[in-house]
């Protein structure tokens, strides 16, 4: 079974620039998550989708972050404009249902300079 795919693996941008991350979840998984992991910390939930609808985006900085999940499959997370404190690893995960274990992708390491 193919895992969660993410791209790019690494990205370096200057502050105030924009960036987008892409995620393809495991086939058949209805729930998709985006997490932010700062070095030395556990992942923090940014947004959760159930099919193509948003379930929870309470911790998403909506003035600069946006996310969408078209047709209930692939998802993109965008940051515009980026700040230095956005430097982190952005992890995408998916699960069969909201109560089941989530499987994570390799993540995208973002460095904002």
């Amino acid at each position, binding site marked *: 079974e193919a895992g969660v795919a993410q791209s790019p693996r690494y990205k370096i941008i200057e502050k105030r620039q924009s960036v987008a991350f892409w995620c393809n979840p495991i086939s058949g998984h209805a729930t998709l998550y985006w997490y932010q992991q700062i070095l030395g910390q556990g*992942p923090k*939930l940014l947004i959760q989708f159930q099919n193509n609808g948003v379930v929870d985006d309470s911790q998403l900085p909506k003035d600069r972050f946006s996310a969408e999940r078209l047709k209930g499959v692939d998802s993109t997370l965008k940051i515009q404009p980026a700040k230095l404190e956005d430097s982190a690893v952005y992890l995408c995960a998916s699960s069969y249902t909201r109560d089941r274990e989530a499987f994570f992708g390799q993540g995208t390491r973002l460095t904002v300079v």
Partner: protein
Amino acid sequence: EDQVTQSPEALRLQEGESSSLNCSYTVSGLRGLFWYRQDPGKGPEFLFTLYSAGEEKEKERLKATLTKKESFLHITAPKPEDSATYLCAVLAGGGADGLTFGKGTHLIIQP
């Protein structure tokens, strides 16, 4: 607010030296407790799910247990390849969906 605290932050063991990692939690209704392993530069890898107090799960040298306030990950006769950061996460009944993670325990097994 849901909280997950893991201890110790870091642990160094000799190969074959058994030990336990702790995860204490405060949640409004536990729907599930999850253990993950994370290697440097990779995403978390799922290990176990525990749903109710008294439940135990085993996989190779790892055994996870759950009480009403905490979970333990027991590592028996570890090998160097068990070196990783072990993350604990909870899924709560009230409020937001999604996992709330602890900061993890960085485990090093020396040959």
